[in-house]
């Protein structure tokens, strides 16, 4: 005798950019599709839809994540921040401003993901996290400087098919207050 069939839909509440949204979702719905198709938050972009390009990057409880591999139903109870939630009213987030000032994009499609990722990169670095570009990961070695090499490694989960990487690295460095190291 098999198990009773489980419901395939759930009523969930998502907390996005400080607002609560209640909706019924098919469990197959990714957070990316829920944001774009159900909540009309279309700033988060769909690129590959397989976790490889980073265009759909959002922050979950302050940590960057790809929303295309995150089921919406499993995101209930977590604080979700999208590109729409970064600015403080009319004042852009410092990372947004740096991308604008330094032309950290060409077509702009990957930009929301790049910016959400960069916000988290700066916080991860401030928290002392090493990266694959860090020569000595032992805590005694201290926090690595956020050099261009460190930024490129830490941002490697965000692809830009226009190839705006040079300006993206500079924008992240400026936002992190580390221009000298990266330029």
């Amino acid at each position, binding site marked *: 005798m098999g198990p009773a069939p489980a419901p395939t839909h759930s009523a969930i509440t998502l907390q996005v950019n400080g607002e609560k949204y209640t909706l019924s979702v098919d469990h197959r719905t990714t957070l990316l599709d829920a944001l774009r198709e159900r909540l009309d938050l279309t700033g988060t972009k769909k690129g590959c839809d397989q976790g490889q390009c980073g265009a759909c990057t959002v922050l979950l409880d302050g940590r960057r994540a790809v929303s295309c*591999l995150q089921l919406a139903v499993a995101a209930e109870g977590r604080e979700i921040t999208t590109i729409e939630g970064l600015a403080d009213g009319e004042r852009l987030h410092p990372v947004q401003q740096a991308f604008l000032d330094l032309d950290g994009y060409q077509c702009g499609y990957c930009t929301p993901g790049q910016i959400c990722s960069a916000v988290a990169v700066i916080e991860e670095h401030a928290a002392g996290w090493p990266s694959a570009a860090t020569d000595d990961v032992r805590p005694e070695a201290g926090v690595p400087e956020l050099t261009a090499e460190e930024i490129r490694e830490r941002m490697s989960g965000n692809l830009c098919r226009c190839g705006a990487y040079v300006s993206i690295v500079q924008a992240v460095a400026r936002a992190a207050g580390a221009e000298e190291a990266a330029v």
Partner: protein
Amino acid sequence: MREFGYHRAADVSGAVALLAADPDARFLGGGTNLVDLMKTGVERPARLVDVRDLPLDRIEPAGDGGLRIGATVTNSELAAHPEVRRRYPALAQAVLAGASGQLRNMATVGGNLLQRTRCGYFTDASKPCNKRVPGSGCPAIEGVHHNHAVLGASAHCVAVHPSDMGVALAAFDAVVSYETADGPGALPLADFYLPVGDTPHRETALPPGALITGVTLPPAPVAARSRYRKVRERASYAFAIGSVAAALDVADGVVREVRLAFGAVASRPWRARAAERALTGAPADADAFAAAADAELSAARPLPDNAYKVTLMRNLTVAVLTELAEEAAR
């Protein structure tokens, strides 16, 4: 994608009870591999049991000087942890060498161990694959196999295990703990992955429905001087074509203890015990390192398009051990 039920487990016993009741259920950790495979139809679970809220998210000292890592610790948290970086630096390096910042924030330690091969025939549900559909054949042997196994493969499957983390865990004698509806159990990593043989669809020795609850690293002073080196086809964010986790203890120019494990060469993280035996007590120099690598790689059975891996692994082993020996001499 097939429709499925979703349960968020509140405790370990509830989670394993749900799996025991439904053979078509799967545990959901970070979902970075499982959700992707569900989108392509490779995985078709009837229900998901979300384990992310279980109290398995801590890294704690194990009583004897080792570390116990909870199964839902994220890959990011593992790599950032000061004690991991201090006592097992190659493990932090291995985790940081895998995937992207986003994926490491989502992926769990338990899920990393259970991730599936990225063999293109396995991930394409329209192709034959003995791992996905037993008995359907292995097109990789005659087809695209430049990143496939050179050690421990069989005529039924030549796929490689994609984990970087697992390679360091293999070098450090990690033990995997699990829970089932019948009680807990543990498997040394050396016994965790099954030999390929004619059953490539059976990947681990976990009992059906088992939930990984954590990984224990035994104390290993040698691990404090360890490194992970990964070779891939681009500078970042790609699976390995070959990798080495190594730890080395040298006294008076002689190897007192060595740990060595290879990645991306077999269906599992490959502990290089023949190389370790050859090197223990030998001089810590490039000739001995090469001889040790050869002792391991003499068992390699490459295919036409992945024979480069034998040379690659030999050179990589020598390079990593040489770095560690130079570090020890400073």
